[in-house]
């Protein structure tokens, strides 16, 4: 019985999948396969494998069935009660259920991408060392230890042009060489998995889908730098990622891939997980180290840089999850190959979490240099509900908004900064004509103000003052000088804050003022929200000319405040209205103001 003949069933079990019932689907598959004696009747091996995130989380639960006759077929939105039928039709009768198959967009979504870092995610069982070894696992570290000097490894990474994927974009090889050059026998390695940006979840998906590649990436870095102890700082909000990574670390210790004299190669490396406790600022490297030491996660001034004096006062190298995930591919396939991907200044691929008002939300990995337009329209299918595109927010609370005019910006570090946004951790939140940009700026500011650690006055008090102004504007009490005040304060806060949080917190405001000043002016001068989004400025009435009499608002209203009959314009009864805005979102024609 050869491998090729085996029937494989791959079930997506990232956080997205599990919350949509992937566990139940898996149990149903196991149960029905046994009941129907698939093994006996078909006479071939049949495996149910749980995998990590496939990327297209909006369509979970995704199930791939691989049979010798049909090849790979993907079903989406699978529920436990359909499993029996799928087994009957697909595996026993060998006919693909065309109606239930994922629609063509699934293939477009997958084909338009280029998966390097995420090759393992969604394809292999994250809990199985064997599965990882079959995918050339631990080959890269073996190659390093057996055939390369530490300095050669660093040189290879330098040549590849890999830059830090956490947002800063500092060349990784250079960072390693700084830490390697620092005197001292005791050095530390940290993997930053404190992924706090709302709207970004690629690090979580890598940890959940392919935890061994992080272990290997850290081993390679440790070898290059000459350190023997590593921490992975994972935020506490990712229980599944912590569980899977801990499992991977335990197996590695058991099988001799971690600890003393790994596999007899004469190389030692120990690692452990440090669980965060819910503080966004701990994504900043010096704050993160304070947190590992058991203190409040407050940033420390640099210099001295962590490469000189970091964790417990020792030289420390700190990289992001996605950066470590890239490393083994560079060693395996060579720096030249890696450097051939991407653009002049940004090499390789980048994972983006595309969310918001886009048709297919999820994780996409594309070569650097693809334009934002291609990512949104070609890979993710464009804007949902046939609405008009307004802007895409890149880089989370530290980033900025990219309007339609500069949608052809390529996704690399420098082009995005030129466009007024930044790569950040790679969240792309798509906004359509119903999203108010002033409200978005207010949202980000309320987030950063809450997460400010309180150390620097400009950040602690300045952000609060800016937030007050923005709140006033969205409530219709803005004054014309407000815009200038915001710009001035933003510039000061950027200059006078110690860490990345304060230095970038005003960005969402500065970029929305730059591109959408007219919306600010409409709020301030006309006391009107052009996107019909700011509650205090709404009229709560249906515009007769725009209403197409579809009745969608009636269905959406939770308090029976809409009067509508077939063929008639809807009417909003103000006395009953609780101002929840459900109808605004339901109306596709912007007919409620």
């Amino acid at each position, binding site marked *: 019985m050869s491998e090729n003949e085996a029937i494989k069933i791959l079930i997506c079990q990232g*956080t*997205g999948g599990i*919350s*949509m019932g992937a566990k139940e689907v898996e149990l149903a598959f196991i149960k029905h396969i046994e009941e129907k004696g698939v093994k006996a009747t078909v006479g071939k091996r049949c495996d149910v494998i749980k995998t990590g995130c496939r990327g*297209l*989380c*909006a*369509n*979970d639960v995704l199930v791939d069935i691989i049979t010798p006759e049909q090849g790979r077929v993907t079903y989406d939105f699978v529920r436990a009660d359909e499993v029996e039928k799928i087994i009957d039709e697909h595996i026993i009768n060998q006919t693909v259920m065309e109606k239930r198959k994922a629609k063509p967009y699934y293939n477009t979504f997958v084909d338009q991408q280029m998966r390097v870092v995420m090759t393992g995610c969604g394809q292999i069982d994250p809990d199985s060392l064997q599965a990882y070894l079959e995918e050339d696992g631990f080959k890269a570290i073996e190659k390093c230890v057996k055939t390369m000097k530490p300095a050669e490894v660093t040189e290879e990474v330098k040549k590849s042009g890999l830059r830090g994927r956490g947002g800063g974009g500092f060349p990784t090889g250079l960072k390693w060489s700084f830490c390697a050059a620092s005197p001292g026998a005791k050095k530390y390695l940290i993997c930053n998995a404190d992924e*706090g*940006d*709302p*709207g*970004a*979840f690629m690090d*979580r998906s890598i940890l959940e889908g392919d935890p061994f590649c992080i272990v290997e990436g850290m081993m390679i870095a440790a070898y290059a730098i000459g350190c023997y102890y590593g921490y992975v700082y994972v935020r*506490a*909000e*990712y229980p599944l990622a912590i569980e899977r990574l801990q499992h991977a670390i335990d197996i590695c210790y058991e099988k001799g891939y971690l600890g003393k004299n790994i596999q007899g190669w004469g190389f030692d490396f120990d690692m452990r997980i*440090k*669980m*965060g*406790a*819910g*503080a*966004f600022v701990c994504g900043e490297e010096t704050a993160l180290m304070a*947190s*590992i*030491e*058991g*203190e*409040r*996660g407050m940033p420390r001034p640099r210099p001295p840089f962590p490469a000189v004096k970091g964790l*417990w006062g020792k030289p420390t190298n700190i990289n992001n999850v996605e950066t470590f995930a890239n490393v083994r591919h560079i060693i395996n396939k060579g720096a030249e190959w890696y450097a051939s991907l991407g653009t002049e200044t940004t090499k390789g691929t980048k994972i983006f*979490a595309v*969310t*918001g*008002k886009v048709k297919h*939300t*999820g994780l996409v990995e594309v070569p650097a240099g693809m334009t934002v337009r291609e990512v949104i329209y070609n890979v993710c299918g464009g804007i949902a509900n046939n609405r008009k595109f307004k802007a895409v*927010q890149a880089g*989370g609370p530290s980033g900025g908004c990219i309007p339609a005019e500069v949608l052809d910006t390529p996704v690399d570090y420098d082009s995005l900064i030129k466009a007024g946004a930044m790569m950040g951790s790679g*969240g792309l*939140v798509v*906004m359509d004509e119903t*999203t108010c940009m002033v409200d*978005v700026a207010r*949202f*980000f500011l309320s*987030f950063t103000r*809450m*997460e400010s*650690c*309180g150390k620097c006055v400009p950040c602690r008090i300045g952000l609060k003052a800016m937030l007050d102004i923005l709140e006033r504007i969205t409530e219709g009490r803005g004054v014309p000088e407000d815009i200038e005040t915001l710009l001035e304060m933003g510039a000061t806060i950027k200059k006078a804050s110690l860490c990345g949080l304060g230095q970038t917190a005003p960005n969402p405001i500065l970029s929305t003022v730059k591109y959408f000043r007219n919306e600010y002016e409409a709020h301030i001068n006309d006391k009107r929200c052009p996107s019909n989004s700011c509650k205090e400025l709404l009229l709560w009435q249906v515009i007769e000319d725009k209403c197409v009499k579809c009745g969608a608002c009636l269905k*959406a209203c*939770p308090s029976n405040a809409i009067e509508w009959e077939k063929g008639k314009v809807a009417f909003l009864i103000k006395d009953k209205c609780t101002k*929840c*805005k*459900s109808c605004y*979102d339901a109306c596709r024609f912007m007919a409620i103001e």
Partner: protein
Amino acid sequence: MSNAPAEQTEQAPAEEIDLAAANKIIDKYLTLPGNLMPVLQGIQEEYGFVPKPTIDLVAERLNVYPSQIFGVLTFYAQFHLKPRGRFIIRVCVGTACHVQGAPRIVETFFDKLGIGHAETTPDLRYTFEKVACLGACGMAPLAMVNDSTYGSMTVQKVEEIISDYNQRPMK
């Protein structure tokens, strides 16, 4: 951190609690460098919150000032100084959920439960929290009750969830 100011203004009631479990957790991490947070996380998992007597115990056994422990506890959003509800409702207010209408979900919960962010109902049935990104943006807006996830939330669904959990047993 102003994430959870409301619950930290009052001290937890100074009741007698069994410190054996806390001692066991401290034993486990005693020699680990930077052990304060793992110890506190362990205690919180054991007791559901960090009771006052355990703070004194940790201070004594790890040789750190209680004020320093209190500083850590109030800095991180994850730690709680008061008992929490049987059902913890978390509503995601991350960017993707925000643009898909999370604010009205939050407000509806506030209205129906009569409590605000990081507060607990007097009968200890519900604790409500706004959280930034649960990482399932494809299903925005998103709510969680303990470990169950509810995607594509609407105002109607809020009412359904509350009436469902109102009928569940407290233990």
